[in-house]
């Protein structure tokens, strides 16, 4: 009796081990994509699964899907919202189960190389490369890795220097400019911010929209001549401890040390903090324009600061959409992707009520003609800045298969510097950690 229990359990154990071993799959390392498909001229009948980070209701993705289904009645879109932070886990689990679900999914642009190297993305070069002229060049570059197109960009971003006009006026500080010839320097900005704190009663001098994130801070070392953070073939040699990096990060640390920038405010709290009205300046993305337009703050927008004696640099990039190489309905997926990113002003930009900065050129033009940008002087300033920066100063984040580790490790170094660690030591530590983390790609 007892022995049969043991045997029974053993049998089940064995059975499940076998199943899970098959599921884990050591069969094929290469992606399932064979590239043998075209964008069809007539719509197939299909249901496609899409995973994205845009909320169906509060961010209007339902309306985008409804508009597509009206244009293409034979294709049903099953859209699933996944929180931004969990996208990676969900993709790891779903794509590697090789069922082809999801057919399409949202891709953080700097992660394109990493996802392509992992075999999660279908190569779209043959099908879509001829059509990318409709898109902003920088976003196409960010969706490309080793000369192949792995996804189509649907949105872009840039940063602006916002200011609280009332506080600046109270302190008698001249607002920063939208004229590229008179772009304010980071050094000047820190001084002015301190003045507004002292004279204008501002609690905070300066806020960065996403403190301690590479996206936000990349312009500092780039403008100071330190580069994007990696060099060499495939950008797999970390370079975050050179002079430009140490100097600019010393400046970053001093913002907190001198009380110009408050400590301990994570990215999700910065917008609300600026909107509360006791912060003089904020460097933040274009998405802030809509929130400011809806607020009763007396605000203005200016060009991003530049490092004293350096070249101006602004971050860019946002989201792309890619196709799962295991998808069973690549042609239907391609129809949706084309509609989303390319058709007209791009379906995504046209039908999403609270759109991001469109990657599509026609979409961008229409976007900057919207009420948030034309309704007020500040809005017009913002439109001017966005048009100039996206076309002239934007620098993509470093394109490397090791981006995920890069972002994570640098984020911690930035955070330590903000909290008072020695910048040089923190950067050298990050450099060493990166060397270790990137060994697997060599």
């Amino acid at each position: 009796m007892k022995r049969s229990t043991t045997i029974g359990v053993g049998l089940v154990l064995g059975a499940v081990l076998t199943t899970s071993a098959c599921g884990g799959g050591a069969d094929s390392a290469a992606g399932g994509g064979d590239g043998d498909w075209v964008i069809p001229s007539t719509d197939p009948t299909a249901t496609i699964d899409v995973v994205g980070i845009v909320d169906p209701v509060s961010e209007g993705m339902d309306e985008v899907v409804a508009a597509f289904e009206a244009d293409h009645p034979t294709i049903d879109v099953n859209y699933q919202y996944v929180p931004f932070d969990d996208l990676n886990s969900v993709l790891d689990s779903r794509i590697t189960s090789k069922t082809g679900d999801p057919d399409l999914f949202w891709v953080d642009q700097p992660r394109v190389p990493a996802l392509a190297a992992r075999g999660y993305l279908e190569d779209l070069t043959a099908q879509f490369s001829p059509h990318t002229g409709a898109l902003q060049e920088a976003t196409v570059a960010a969706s490309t890795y080793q000369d192949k197109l792995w996804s189509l960009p649907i949105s872009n971003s840039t940063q602006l220097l916002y200011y609280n006009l009332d506080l600046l006026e109270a302190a008698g500080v001249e607002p920063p400019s939208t004229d590229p010839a008179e772009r304010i320097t980071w050094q000047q900005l820190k001084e002015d911010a301190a003045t507004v704190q002292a004279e204008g009663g501002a609690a905070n001098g300066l806020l960065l929209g996403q403190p301690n994130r590479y996206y936000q801070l990349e312009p500092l070392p780039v403008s100071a001549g330190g580069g994007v953070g990696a060099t060499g073939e495939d950008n797999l040699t970390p370079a975050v401890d050179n002079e430009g990096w140490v100097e600019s990060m010393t400046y970053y640390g001093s913002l907190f040390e001198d009380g110009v920038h408050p400590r301990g405010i994570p990215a999700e709290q910065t917008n609300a903090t600026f909107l509360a009205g006791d912060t003089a300046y904020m460097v933040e993305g274009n998405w802030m324009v809509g929130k400011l337009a809806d607020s009763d703050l007396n605000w203005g927008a200016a060009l991003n600061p530049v490092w004293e004696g350096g070249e101006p640099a602004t971050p860019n990039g946002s989201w792309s959409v890619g196709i799962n190489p295991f998808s069973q309905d690549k042609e239907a997926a391609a129809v949706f992707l084309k509609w989303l990113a390319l058709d007209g002003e791009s379906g995504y930009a046209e039908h999403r009520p609270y759109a991001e900065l469109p990657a599509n050129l026609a979409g961008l033009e229409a976007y900057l003609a919207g009420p948030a940008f034309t309704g007020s002087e500040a809005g017009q300033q913002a439109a001017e800045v966005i048009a100039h920066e996206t076309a002239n100063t934007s620098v993509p984040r470093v394109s490397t298969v090791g981006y995920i580790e890069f972002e994570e490790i640098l984020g911690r170094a930035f955070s330590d510097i903000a909290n008072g660690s020695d910048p040089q030591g923190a950067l050298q530590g990050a450099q060493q950690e990166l060397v270790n983390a990137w060994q697997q790609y060599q």
Partner: protein
Amino acid sequence: MSTTTSPPVPGARAVPGPGAAARRRPSFSGPRLQRVLLLVLLTTAAALVALAFMLPTVWMLLGSLRPGSQVISSVSPLGWHTLVPETWTLENYAALFGQLGFGRSMANSLWVALWSVVIGLALSIPAAYVLSVLRFRGREAVFAVLVVGFMIPFEAIAIPLAQVFTEWNLNNTYLGLILPGIGNGLAIFNMRQFFLGVPISLREAALIDGASELRIMTRLYVPLSVTTIINSALLIFLAQWSSYLWPLLVISDQAKQVAPIAIARTFTDTEFNFGQMFGGALLISVVPAVLLLLLQRYFAQSVARSGEK
């Protein structure tokens, strides 16, 4: 543990007789004033402890009753309005139940958690019973397996397990959500610890009277262990109620999504609605809190011991 002096009535659901109250009286002797003072002191202490634990919750509650971003704008400087909203609003709750479909998600969560408790208890109670009253070879080994089972961090096995569930076609099913919650080694461990304390003489007497193990378990051990079973039920319930990663991996159909995921919809990479998020988090906490409050009456003074006077 303790030995009983007289054989109890087998299977009888013992209740403290009228004598119990009378017997307690000696411990309450002493000057009346001192007693009252002590009671006031202890009640004050209890209220203070409760307040310390409630304060952050109350702050979250009041935060959920103010317009979106005011949670942040009111934190500094500290003042009356850090706690009490200047403008009261139900807009966060309206948004939660409206566009975020929180009602549906809560119902899904409740459905999943309740079934997990029912099935989980049905599996755990007999297992705990056998492990604590019967002696057999391999008992320690089985128990060790259960202990190891609850030590394994679920995050470590979630992705491989999700792929197995995909093969079994359990994606987008309630069963797929319920299954991982039913084998709860911690609940078994908890009940085993209590069952070990039930005097073995009770069971022996019942056996002599010819009761089956099932009968002894359901008529003797379960009634004696109501508090512990409630605790085990809460344990299973809370584990499922707060489960986040697993539903994310196995559910892609919005209509079957659970409440903790709905909370994640209150923030995106650039937007963060603190009022909505606090409101959602508190709504989720209401169900187990109310359950506990309602079940308080079962947290009575020892039933087990009064059966063996």
